[in-house]
Each structure stands twice: as structure tokens, then as C-alpha cells.
């Protein structure tokens, strides 16, 4: 299959673009694979890619119940960052940012990772100290972080309400310059194409309806396209984890499924350059290359599989937007959507062997899964290939809850709606 490049684009343009081939094949399922990955979202596709690339395991199928990338990889606010507090998180997400920096080249697909920076606004001395702690933790963990004064923020983000009379005046901001945004769909398509080119079978419209067992070991799946046997079965279906794991007889997990809404405004000429978050509430916003302001806030706060939220969160998010940028009151909301999040009990993900022999589980991404896509796939592939976690994901195994070795960035305990 042809490499993508400016030259290839030019050549094809002259030929009316008739020479392009499908980005990935549409193969029929084989009866058996070495590894079957359930879930054709970002994490599942990345896992397949790194299994092939890093571990030489290419007899792999990715099973997607609908169209590829129809889950949260295609419905998020596209933010990539590693501005975490706890060392386990910083190590993991910093590794992810490093993979992001090379991703377009690695995949030969422009995922449009744009390191335009993420700025967290602080609104009280206590919050400033909190952010200082986090920024310093990032620096000590080897990452980048800097503190911006209100004057520096005014230069970087014109239009922000930085007046002392604001309900929550801005006292400063934590900037991670290497953070940014990427094009979400391109990540799914890029990984799919790259995995496909290494021999991975991507099977769309292939819903898992059951698991095969032999002597207590998972050895394959029943699907809407027939039985598929597998040496190992890996599940990466954040949002639907409890549903799929119930098919394997796991009825309870440290996970609740919640709906998170996200929003896009009408397209505008460049208005804001970096990602900005509002500290006196919960809001994160950036501007896409097409010009739409892309933003979101809290989860709705109740269990849901509906991919649809309700008005209270909509109103709260818009209120925070116009509190930050009072001129945006006249800008209009164009679209909203809802995604289903795996909210875990400490707000951190789970990348683990088990919980059954032959099974591997990647879940619990809360609403931070997009940025983690490369590192999640990389470490999950390692865990599957070697039957043990890599040092990067060793803290993120399932048994940490029993052990009390929690990774609780927000310090909220086992109340998922607060993470």
C-alpha cells in the first residue's frame, strides 16, 4: 500500500484521486488468532499496532461491534497532556506524550498533534499552591511545567476575564507547553491503517456475544460474525467494560459507566491558541483547526450507557465558558454529544493481566483516555505479549484497590462521580 506523503498526494491529485486504496482491509474473520483484541477504538487499535511492531505478534484481530472508532476515540475533546500530580501518573502520561510526538511519522498518518500548550487557571492562593505542587511534581518527574503570572496569561490568552472583579479572579496559571491537541478520528484511522499494514485483521460490525473457555481459561470469543478462537483475549472497551466483562462472568468491577458531554461552537477565526482550563469549576476548552471551540466539563454524574446527557451540565459548562471569556456569550453552541466513560474508583485506569486466565483487561479511563492512547496500547501490548505488566503500568493493575495502593489524583476516594 502506498505511503502517504505530499508527493503521493500530488500524484494522486493529478489522477483525480482514483489511485487511493482503502486505509485498512475489510477481511473475513479467520477461525483463530494468536491474540484477539475486543474493541476497535483508539486503545484496542494501538494495542494491535504495538503488538505487531514491538513484539512481532501479527496474527491479531481487532473486533469492533460497530464502525471503527465509534466509541470515545471519536467523541472527546482531543486534549493530550501529562500535567498530573502523582509520580505513577506522570511517568505513564509523559511516556504517552513522547509517543505522541513521533506518532504521525510512526504511523505515516498525520494525527495533527499540535503542542499548543495546556494552561490551568488558578483562582485562589490555595489553588495556586495546589497547582505549584503539581507543576513541581511534573518537573521532578522529568516533564515540563511553568508558572504564568496574570500578566503573562493576558498576553497568551487575550479575551480572558482577568479583572479583579471577576467572581473568581485569576491569580496565575500552570502551563504545560508540550501538551496540546490532536485530531481524534485520525488517531483511530492512523493506528488502524498502520496495524493493518503489519497484518492485523480489523473486523468491523463484529460484536462479541460470549467468551469461549477451556478448563477455566478464556480461549476465544463468540461473535456476531462467528466463533473466533484465540491464544489470548484482550478487552479494551472503555465505556462498555462492565457489559463485555459480564459476558465472561465478571459481574462486578471497580467501575461505573457515566456519560460525559462535550461541546463544539460554530467555527471562528483563531480565537484561542492553547488549551485553557477553568479552575473555579471544571471546564477545558481549545480551538480546533477548523475553528470550532471544543470544550467540556464534568460528567453528568449518574450511571448511563445512553451517549446522551442532560441540561444541568450543559448550562453549567456554558456558564463557566462565558465566565472565562465574556465575549463568547455571543458565540453559538453548534453541537453537543455524549460519551460513556469508565469511571474507576480512584480515577485512574486499569491495565492488567486477568482477571481470568487467558484474559487481559484495559479499562477505567475515566475521561482521560484519549491522551493515553499510545501509552495505553504500548503497555497493554507489553502486558499481553509478556504476561506481566511493564514498569509503567505495574501500578495500574486491578489488585491495587484491595491493596490500598490507590492512584487518586483528585483525592476523592471511591466516589466515581467526583473523579
Amino acid at each position, binding site marked *: 500500500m502506498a505511503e*502517504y*506523503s505530499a508527493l503521493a*498526494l500530488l500524484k494522486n*491529485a493529478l489522477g*483525480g484521486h482514483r489511485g*487511493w*486504496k482503502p*486505509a485498512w482491509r475489510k477481511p473475513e474473520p479467520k477461525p483463530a488468532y494468536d491474540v484477539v483484541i475486543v474493541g476497535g477504538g483508539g486503545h484496542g487499535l494501538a494495542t494491535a499496532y504495538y503488538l505487531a511492531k514491538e513484539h512481532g505478534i501479527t496474527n491479531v484481530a481487532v473486533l469492533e461491534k460497530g464502525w*471503527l472508532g465509534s466509541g470515545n476515540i471519536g467523541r472527546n475533546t482531543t486534549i493530550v497532556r501529562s500535567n498530573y500530580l502523582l509520580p505513577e501518573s506522570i511517568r505513564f502520561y509523559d511516556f504517552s506524550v513522547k509517543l505522541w*510526538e513521533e506518532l504521525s*511519522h510512526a504511523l*505515516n498518518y*498525520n494525527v495533527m*498533534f*499540535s*503542542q499548543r500548550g495546556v494552561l490551568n487557571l488558578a483562582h*485562589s492562593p*490555595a489553588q495556586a*499552591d*495546589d497547582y*505549584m*505542587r503539581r*507543576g*513541581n511534581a511534573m518537573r*521532578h518527574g522529568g516533564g515540563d511545567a511553568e508558572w504564568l503570572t496574570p500578566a503573562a496569561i493576558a498576553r497568551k490568552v487575550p479575551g480572558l476575564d482577568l479583572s479583579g472583579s471577576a*467572581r*473568581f479572579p485569576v491569580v496565575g496559571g500552570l502551563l504545560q507547553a508540550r501538551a496540546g491537541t490532536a485530531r481524534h478520528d485520525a488517531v483511530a484511522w492512523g493506528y488502524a491503517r498502520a496495524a493493518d499494514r503489519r497484518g492485523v485483521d480489523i473486523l*468491523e460490525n463484529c460484536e462479541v456475544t460470549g467468551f469461549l473457555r477451556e478448563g477455566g481459561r478464556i480461549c476465544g470469543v463468540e461473535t456476531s460474525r462467528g466463533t473466533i478462537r484465540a491464544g489470548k483475549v484482550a478487552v479494551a472497551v472503555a465505556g462498555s467494560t462492565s457489559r463485555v466483562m459480564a459476558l465472561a462472568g465478571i459481574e462486578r468491577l471497580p467501575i461505573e459507566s457515566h456519560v460525559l458531554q462535550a461541546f463544539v461552537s*460554530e*467555527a*471562528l*477565526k*483563531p480565537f484561542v491558541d492553547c488549551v485553557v482550563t477553568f479552575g*473555579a469549576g471544571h471546564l477545558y476548552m481549545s*480551538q480546533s483547526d477548523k*475553528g470550532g471551540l471544543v470544550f467540556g466539563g464534568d460528567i453528568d454524574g449518574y450511571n448511563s450507557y445512553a451517549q*446522551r446527557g*442532560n*441540561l444541568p451540565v*450543559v*448550562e453549567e459548562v*456554558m*456558564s463557566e465558558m*462565558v465566565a472565562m471569556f*465574556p*465575549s463568547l*456569550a*455571543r*458565540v*453559538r*453552541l*453548534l*453541537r453537543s454529544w455524549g460519551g460513556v466513560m469508565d469511571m474507576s474508583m480512584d480515577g485512574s485506569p486499569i491495565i492488567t493481566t486477568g482477571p481470568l486466565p487467558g484474559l487481559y483487561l484495559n479499562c477505567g479511563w475515566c475521561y482521560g483516555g484519549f491522551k493515553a492512547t499510545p501509552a495505553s496500547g504500548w503497555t497493554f501490548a507489553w502486558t499481553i505479549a509478556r504476561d506481566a505488566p511493564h514498569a509503567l503500568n505495574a501500578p495500574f493493575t486491578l489488585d491495587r484497590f*484491595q491493596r*490500598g*495502593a490507590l492512584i*487518586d489524583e*483528585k483525592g476523592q*476516594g*471511591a466516589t466515581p462521580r467526583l473523579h
Partner: protein
Amino acid sequence: MSPRRAAAGGLVDRDRPVRFTFDGRPYTGFAGDTLASALLASGVTLCGRSFKYHRPRGVFAAGLDEPNALVTVLRGAVREPNVPATQIEIHPGLRVESQNRYPSLAYDVGAVNQLGGPLLAAGFYYKTFMGPVVGPLRGTRFWMLCEKAIRRAAGLGRAGREPDPARYERMNAFCDVLVVGAGPAGLEAAEAAAKAGKRVILAETEPAAGGSALWSGETIGGTPAARWAQERAARLAAMDNVRLLTRTTVWGYYDNNVLAALERVGDHGPAAAPGEPRHRHWTVRAGRVVLATGALERPLVFPGNDRPGVMLAGAAERYAVQYGVLPAARLAVFTNNDGAYRAAAALARAGAEVAAIVDTRSTLSDAARALAAETGAELLSGHAVVATAGRRALSGITVQAFEAAGGRLSGPRRAIAVDGLAVSGGWSPALHLASQAGAAPVWDETRQAFLPPQPSGRGWLAAGAVLGTAGTAEALAEGRMAGRRAAGQRAARSRVPAVAAPALDPHPAEVIAIPAPGKAFVDLQHDVTVEDIRLAHREGFVAAEHVKRYTTLGMATDQGKTSNVPGLAVLAAARGKPLGALGTTRFRPPYAPVSLGALAAERYGHLRPERLTPMHDWHVDNGARMEDAGLWKRPMIYGQPGETVAQAYVREAGRVRAAVGIIDVSTLGKIAVKGPDAAAFLDRVYTNTFSTLPVGKARYGLMLREDGLAMDDGTTWRLGQDDFLMTTTTANAGKVMQHLEYLLDVAWPDMKVHLTSVTDQWAGAALAGPQSRAVLAACVTGTAVDNETLPFMGIVRGAIDGAPVTICRLSFSGERAYEVYCGAGHGLAVWEALMEAGAAHGIVPYGLEALGALRIEKGHVTGAEIDGRTTARDLHLDWMLSKKKPFVGAAMMDREGLTGADRHRLVGVVALDGRPLGGGAHIVERGTAEALGESIGHITACCYSPALQRHIGLALVRGGKARHGSRAHVSDPLRGRFGPVEIVSHHFFDPEGSRMYG
């Protein structure tokens, strides 16, 4: 007279000319005109530039489905970008400018993108801009460079940076029946429900009710349809149980029949009326919903279909009939259905020359032929438009014979000179709200449309064109039936007014795209062409959602209202499948764009309420600098002229240790815990025991979460055998209350305990310092306050300045100290009495900074240490963990991860270089300011200690106590601070507590 205004007709008020400007040029229209109709009347055909290729575009539609004519409305320095000209009612002083063009609309350098057209095919950006793998532009740098240019070219309008001065408002409404859309079906439904006595809300996007009746040219009950609609609407508006909302778009259908609507209250005049907001955000809770949302016309897709002058046939008809405006002088019609014939006739009646009617069908209805004959147009059945001509305006079309069944063009091409082309590809029901409510649309082959499914207990009914119904008579009948059913009445058919209308064939031909060479646009605003969709298909993007995402089809501000079905039709043809097999994408809120300000409503400019203590004004009047603590405003310092924050708190804290200070503690959470099981309940929720606490005494308590981590601390006072007053930290007041209520309701429903939040009912002042007792003695009546009567942790009741007070002797500062509580209404008087009594003792008010310094010196923990990740042992509060009784968190607190030797535990740190420490700074054993060492912990709180005269801090450090006496470094790269510290006990000052107990 404007060049395109018909001699007569239309619902505009020809006696009221209205002047406005477009790109600085003055124009005149009539009251009742939209910006679109007024510009068309003035002969303006070029209104905008497209998103990608910057192609010239004109008005295409007449409603909120307009994809092309988007403008920015200017009010002073305030900008509202991307408003469809079809939705702007002209008014005196209206100023608008065109968008996405430079330097001007007529000459736009961005149009150079058209030359690169072949390169800019769907998804081209995924295949390039990746840049070199080595060198200065490696990594993401090359892409970010390209991205800058792409961003400048993209976007549409420019948002302002000036705060919007407008006011927005939210309204909650309740009704039995909400009718969405006030066309004939909606009017009929509303009246049927209203006559049944139901509370009805009827919402209409347009400025006036009537819908298609305003331009259909039909008669209803013998009356011209427009007049019928006006009379009907007036009748409804006069009914007490009906609320008619015009200029109101219902945009969201949420769970349990909660619908959201936007009312544009003030946009149609120079300013909102006095007392009125600009926009009103309606939240309607409806018993039943009748969707009478009509249908949106869709175009045919053919090369050159985007030229200014090409317009939807229904829109052209509407301009002619409703506004008395001819979109063109000489025009052609291109259609696959009968509807456009009515438009042709209306245009001809208004004075336009209809040169030709081009119909993809070879067999036509008699009614269509009759209308065609009336126009005098050349009727080209079995033909298609295969090209258009003109630069910034249409100058002609090319037609060719077309066989619809095989989709084949044949025969000679023929040019026809026209300056307008009215196009119709059929109608798509506006079923967006039903889709939002969860209904999956079903493709109907005969009607060539996605229809809403039969509603089944979903709370909504539908009537009229949204069901695919074409005729007004049927729509009226369906409306009445839906209104009756929504009102809970039998759905018996009853007589509706007779409609006089031509007997048109409601079913369009299957044709949507014409297979001729050339750029044929599907999504006009985003410049998505037929070829783009085919390319997506070729590259394997065959799911409808994939095509949408890969090509950006339907993602523009019009949200694909005109392009959705044509796009699917092109995809279906490429896949060789029937359109119905593809399904459509799910519609999501909002149906039409909604201003962010409206959704914020009253919260715009007032994001959160302010919580103020009863003494707030006193603090402000006495020089307090206020700080946000959650929703509360609390004094940070009471600064004196020329003082820095640090100087102020050092002075305040010093006065507390030397004499006496007073601080407002009204913000502490306060919960009344009462009932026969109150003591037993507290034993369960606190780690320590409260059942042994004597009446009239207080005790410090610690709560854990169920997972064994520390949750909150505070004192609880036993006021009576079954009567406790619990205090919590300010930040956790709500959370603790909820925690306790959950346990009582869910875990221990048999316990007889009642909880009441009394945070706002009690004002509190804490008096601290060696002179505190003397101050109390000087002003408290009704009780003694000596050490005997009021020992440490004792409670007395008395009065200050006549107000009843409860006084507890407890200390957060390590000094002799008291908390004085009184009813909130007495708060200020009591505070002032304490200040007065304290004057002789040199009392000072102190703020949070001094409070922090005093508690740091004592090593008391607060929210900075109880941060949800620490245990009682981490904070050296293990002495509070009762071994005699179970308590919340006891079973989980001993897990290995919470007890290991590497836990970060509370210590004190002292700066050895005499420089300030910073909150959030880290502690390292090794390293330098440049080569950062490994973090072993962080500083949770720090201050300059007036008592120790050193910079000190509390810190959570790996290993904790074991490091006492050892050296380490503070490492604070964000502040550029690095220096030596000593790790010490967190009890810096008076560890024996002699000052507190004495």
C-alpha cells in the same frame, strides 16, 4: 424601488422602510424583511464565501437551514459571528459584515484555494504535513507551522474580545402540551389541546406563526392561508391557557420530556425592550409533546450547483410570496418533484420570468403540467441541469436529456440564459427532535425521506410535514388529531377546514445527484463535493459516520440540514446499496445553534452566588482583603496602609500570641446531631468515642471515609444528652453532611438520629490569645468564664450585648482560645461587642493568613494535609483511632498500601537559608536547582513564624518521623527556589500545650 422588489404583495410593511448597512454600504428594506430578503430585493447576490475554497456564495435558503449567507452582526464593539442572513430581521441601525474573505467579499485572496482544489480533496491533511524526521522541523514542529496557516484560512466569522453587555435569562415553564412549530399542523394541534382545557405552549422559530401558510398561496376554509394563520394565532394567543412563543427555537429534547428552547427577545430591534433580556433560555417540562416541525427542502446535486443565484425552490417561492422579492429576473426551475411547480407559479405571478422548468422525471402529474403552463415556461421533462455559468452570479445553465431510471444523460447539451435557478430535490422531515428523543428514523422509499418511527410511549406525537405529509389538508387533520391525543382525548377524525390547493403528486423521483462531470457540491458551507464522498468510499470510509468525519459533511453551522440526505444518496450509490440500508446519523442537540450567553442565563456575569458571613461588611470596612474559600468570602488579612500581606499576617499572628485576636469562623460547617441514638451514631462515624463525652464538653474528632483514608476533622459539642453540635471544616461542610445522611438513610436506617445543617444559622467568632479570657469576662453576662467554669473543651451559655451566645473553649492556635457562637442575626452585634471589650487589651482582627501561621506553628492539620490521600497515621492522628469500637473506615485503614513505611507522613520543615518556603514546593534529598533530585514529598503549608522567627512549613515526606533532625532541600523549580531545610517535628511551638490549657 429596489431592483428585485415585486410591484405588490408580500407580508412586509411597504410603508415602513428600514435602513441598514452591509459591509459599510447602506441599504433599505421594509419592516418584515429578513436581511436575506432585503439584500435580494436590493439585487445583492454575493453574500458570503465558502469555508474551504472561498467560493462566492449567495442566499440559498430562507430559514435556519441557510448554509451560505452567514454574516457577522455588529453592535458597537460587540460581534456576533456566523448568523444566517435568513434569520436576521432588519431593523434601524442594523450593521452587518460579510465573513471569511480578505480584503473584500468581491475580491477574496482566499479564492486561490480553488486552484489547489484537486490537492485539497477530502482528508488530504491526513496524508501530508508530517514534515521531516530529522532536523529543526522534526517531531510536531513542521505540522504546527502548517497548522498556523490552515487555522488562519479556516474558521468563518471572527468573535469579538469585548465582553458582551447583554443580559440573558432563563425561564422554567410547565405545560400539559408543548407544540413545536406553528405551521398549519401545529396551529391546529395547539388549538385542539387548548380547547380540551390543557395548558399549551406553542413555539415557533419564525417571527410570526403560520409556517408554510405564509407563502403557500393556498386558501384554508375559504380564507387566504396567511390570513387564516394570523387569525388562528391571534385566537390562540388570547386564550389564558395558551402561551404562543415566536422567535423561539426548540433545540433540545432531553429525558422525561424536558425540552430546551431559545427565544430571541431582543435581536430584532436596536436594543432589547426595557427589562427584557437579549435571549431567553426556556426549559419546558411538558406532559406531552407534539412535533409539528415541518420539513426542510433539499437540493439536487449537479455541477456548479453552488453559484450565487442557485436557490432552493421553496425559498424562492417564499421570497416571492412572503417578502414580495424576486430572487432573479429570469429564472429556471430544476426539480425531481411537483412541489417546485407551485414555486414556479408563485414566482411568475410575482412578476419573474420563468424561462424553463427542468424536471428529471419524464412523466408528470396534470396539476404540475397546469402550473407549468401558467408560468409560460418551457417544460423540459426528462432533463437535468448539467452545468452552470457565471462568476460571482449565475448567468446561465446547461441542460441535457436525462433518463432517471438508468441515471443516464444523453443528447445535446443546451445553454439557457438565466440569472436564477430554483432547485428542489424533495423534502426531508425535520425529525431532529424525535431523533434526539431516541427515535431511529426509517427511510421511506415512496416518500424518499427519513421519517420518524411510530411513536410508542415516548411522550411525543407528530403531525404534518415532519411525518412526510405533503398536503395542508392532511397536515391540519393530523395536527388536530395529535392535539386531541396529546390532551388525552380520543383520536377521532373530525372535520378540518377545507383547503384549496393544486392536486400535486407528493412523491419525488429517486434522483438526487446528476452524473455529470464537474464540481458538484453536497455540503455547500464545507465545500464537500460528490467526488469527496466517492474518495472517502474508495478509501474504505463506508459507514455514514465515517464519511461524515472524513469529509466533514454535515458538520458546518447548518449541521447538514440540506446536505445530509444528498450526501447519503451519493454514498449509497457508491456502495451500490439502497439509501435506506445505510441508516442516518443520530441528531444531537442543539437543532440550531444557541448562544452560549443564553445557556448561561443569569449566571452570565454571576457564575456563583457569594456566601457572606454576617460580619462581612465589617471586615470590608475595616480593611480586610477578602479571599475566596469555596463560595465563601473570607478575610485574608486586615492590611494597614503600606503593609504587605506577609507583614500584615506576621503582625496579626504576633498580636494573638502576645495579647488577643479575633477571627470570623462563621464559615465552619455546623451540623446539629440530635436524637436518642446521636451519641452511638457519632461513635460510628468518628474514629474516637463521643458517647463518653459529658454534657457541656466538646471533643476533637476525626472522620475517615469508608476506604480508610482521612476525610475531615472538627470539634463536636455535647449540648445535651441527645443533642450535639458538630463542626466541620469550611470546605467539607456539604460533603460531611451528605456522608452522614447517606449512612443514616442507607446503612443504619434504624438509628434514631436527626441531622440538620445549621451552618448559616450560627455566626461564630474565635477569640485567641492570652488576653482572650479577659475580653470575654468584660462582655459576657449570665455565666462566669473562669478556668473552673469554662475549662479547656468546656462549654457555657451566656449573653453578649443581650444576645444569647454559646461559648466553647477550644484552640486551633495553641493559645488560650474560645469560639463564641450566636444566632446569625446577632453576629455583627456580638462581634462588635467583642471588639469593644477587647480594645483595652489590644485586640486585633486576624485573617486566614495569620490563622494559617498560628496553626502551622502548632502542627495542626487542615485540608492541605487531609487531602483525600492521607491516612490518620500519616498525620500522626493514630491516637484518635479507637480500638474498642468499630467506626467507618476501620476495616479498610490497615491495608498494606496505607500502612507501608514509604508512606508520606507529616513533618515540619525549617528553612536553613532564611528564605521563604512556598506551598507546593517539593522536598528532595539530593539534586540542585538545575539538576532536580527525586522528590520525597512536598510542603503543604508554610509561613514566616513570628514565634520562631524563621520560615517554616508543614510537609508530607516519605518516611516521616524517621527523618526528624535530618537535612534535605526545598526544591521549587516553578518559583526558582532551591535551598537547604531541616526536617523536624510538626509541633514547632509549645508542644506541651501549656499556653492552651492554662
